[in-house]
């Protein structure tokens, strides 16, 4: 059998084939389908009805309400009510307002190595952190997938990103991805990105999620990390007892890849992306002294427990600058609870942070924390497109939770390393 990369092995398995090769169009059986309140029932219900069809396998479908939670107006409340009713009527697992979809799926062990998963959200590549092949699609395609249980995929070429050399203190997976956005650009739709190397092996599952999640910003088909003992430990914690078939779910050493990028993690300084694109990234030193009105720690990318801890490390014993507001919207209620238990939350609030509800919130301009015209924000979110967080005349910078926290203290964009000494 020809050597294959991990993503190729998963696609071949899902398509019922021995092998696949880049460029081939294959129809894959879906192991898990995720949809959320924004792109889910509100958009597929009428279409399914029109087709007179039923969900192909309710045990493989998970609904997560996260975009409009908690409701801030009547439109949102109605969408959430419809989502609740529809999920119940179809017998689907529904996580209602307890966290952001990509994080919740992994917290509850729904995504496992070797699975082929489909999500109704562009950051669905997050599932790759666990060694699954997970792609994002729109609501019409979700409708089709709900009916047929399948999705067609044009087998992508593999782009391998090798990161060796431990990341320096104050540098996180987010900095790696901002750096990659600047060097690879955002139009890599031909590729599935496979992240590996000693620095990746040393990353927590939360940080691996950031790599895969922001593959969406690279425009890639999806991202993936080979499962290892850290993956297995995370799955155990999420209540998945099965052992991982390590020999199967890895790239064959001689499998051809289209391109390999090597990064020395130890030499990477903190990165920030200037408005209005993640590809506008640069070393934080080139942006220092940009004044910020709002610092936002939120989103699947940037408000997990590990992110809250990064912020706390910087904020401990310090205060948010006058004239700057620091908003924090944790990625799940379970993570908020843990942050409270261990004292991380107190560190954040004592520094003057304003705690917001769990959910997508201002990341997509849907909840608390919107920006007025002329305002500048630095956010730990994944994208800073014009108008995304409120006014089209607002300016959003991106940075790691360390950098966002440091900027909140300084009142302007700041290098977090000087606060960690």
């Amino acid at each position, binding site marked *: 059998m020809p050597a294959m990369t991990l993503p190729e092995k998963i696609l071949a398995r899902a398509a019922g084939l021995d092998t696949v090769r880049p460029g081939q169009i294959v129809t894959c059986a879906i192991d898990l389908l995720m949809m959320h309140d924004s792109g889910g029932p509100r958009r597929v219900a009428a279409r399914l009805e029109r087709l007179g069809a039923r969900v192909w396998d309710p045990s493989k479908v998970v609904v997560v309400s996260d975009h409009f939670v908690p409701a801030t107006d009547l439109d949102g409340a109605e969408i959430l009510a419809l989502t609740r009713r529809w999920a119940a009527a179809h017998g689907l697992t529904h996580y209602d307002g307890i966290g952001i979809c990509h994080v919740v799926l992994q917290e509850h062990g729904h995504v496992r190595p070797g699975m082929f998963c489909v999500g109704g959200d562009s950051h669905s590549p997050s599932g790759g952190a666990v060694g699954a092949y997970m792609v994002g699609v729109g609501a019409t395609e979700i409708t089709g997938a709900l009916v047929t249980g399948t999705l067609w995929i044009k087998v992508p070429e593999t782009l391998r990103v090798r990161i060796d050399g431990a990341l320096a203190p104050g540098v996180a997976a987010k900095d790696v991805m901002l750096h990659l956005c600047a060097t690879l650009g955002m139009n890599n739709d031909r590729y599935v990105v496979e992240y590996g190397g000693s620095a990746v092996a040393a990353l927590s599952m939360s940080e691996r999620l950031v790599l895969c999640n922001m593959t969406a910003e690279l425009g890639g088909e999806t991202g993936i990390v080979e499962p290892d003992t850290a993956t297995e430990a995370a799955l155990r914690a999420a209540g998945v007892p099965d052992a991982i078939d390590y020999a199967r779910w890895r790239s064959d050493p001689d499998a051809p890849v289209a391109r390999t990028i090597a990064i020395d993690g130890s030499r990477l300084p903190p990165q920030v992306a200037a408005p209005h694109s993640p590809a506008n990234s640069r070393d934080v030193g080139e942006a220092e002294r940009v004044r910020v009105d709002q610092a936002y720690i939120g989103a699947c990318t940037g408000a997990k427990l590990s992110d809250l801890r990064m912020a706390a490390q910087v904020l401990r014993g310090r205060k948010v600058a006058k004239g700057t507001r620091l908003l924090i919207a944790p990625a799940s209620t379970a993570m908020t609870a843990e942050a409270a238990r261990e004292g991380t939350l107190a560190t954040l609030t004592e520094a003057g942070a304003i705690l917001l509800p769990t959910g997508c919130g201002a990341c997509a301009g849907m909840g608390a924390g919107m920006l007025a015209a002329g305002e500048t924000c630095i956010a730990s979110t994944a994208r800073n497109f014009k108008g995304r*967080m409120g006014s089209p005349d607002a300016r959003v910078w991106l940075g790691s939770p360390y950098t966002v926290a440091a900027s909140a203290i300084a009142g302007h964009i700041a290098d977090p390393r000087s606060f960690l000494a």
Partner: protein
Amino acid sequence: MSAPIVRRGRAFVFGDQIDTDVLAPGPYMKKPLSELARHCMEAVDPGFASRVRPGDIVVGGVGFGIGSSREQAVQALLELGVGAVVAKGFARIFYRNALNLGLPALVCEDLEASAGDEIEVFPVEGRVINHTRRREYACEPIPAALMEVVAAGGLVPWLEHRLGPRSG
């Protein structure tokens, strides 16, 4: 069978990386499509929604539709009557969404067009004519596996046809 898809209209020309927040701004995502569509492209061209007329052609650069999976980015264009999008490259979800919703999306690296040029698009044949410049350009053909879906007018009508009459 469905009539051959041909679209003809005036060009609205945009640059690279027109993202889904420009096409369907987050703050209006809870609103009905008709209202959301009025804000389509406003961050880069505030007059677009009021000037575009049914059949007009959107011309983009590389990375058209990058960002979110929201298909309102496609539906806002359809709501405004846009006949087709021709771009140097599309983000993968936007491309799938466009075809799934029956909006022809053609990859054409060479197309030269200025605002207002008269453009005719032949999605099935994979060519574009700029009548103003009297020039024809070849495009990347839509993958065969998708052609059926596009010809049916999108994924839902295609599935409707495939699943047969409603069993109730």
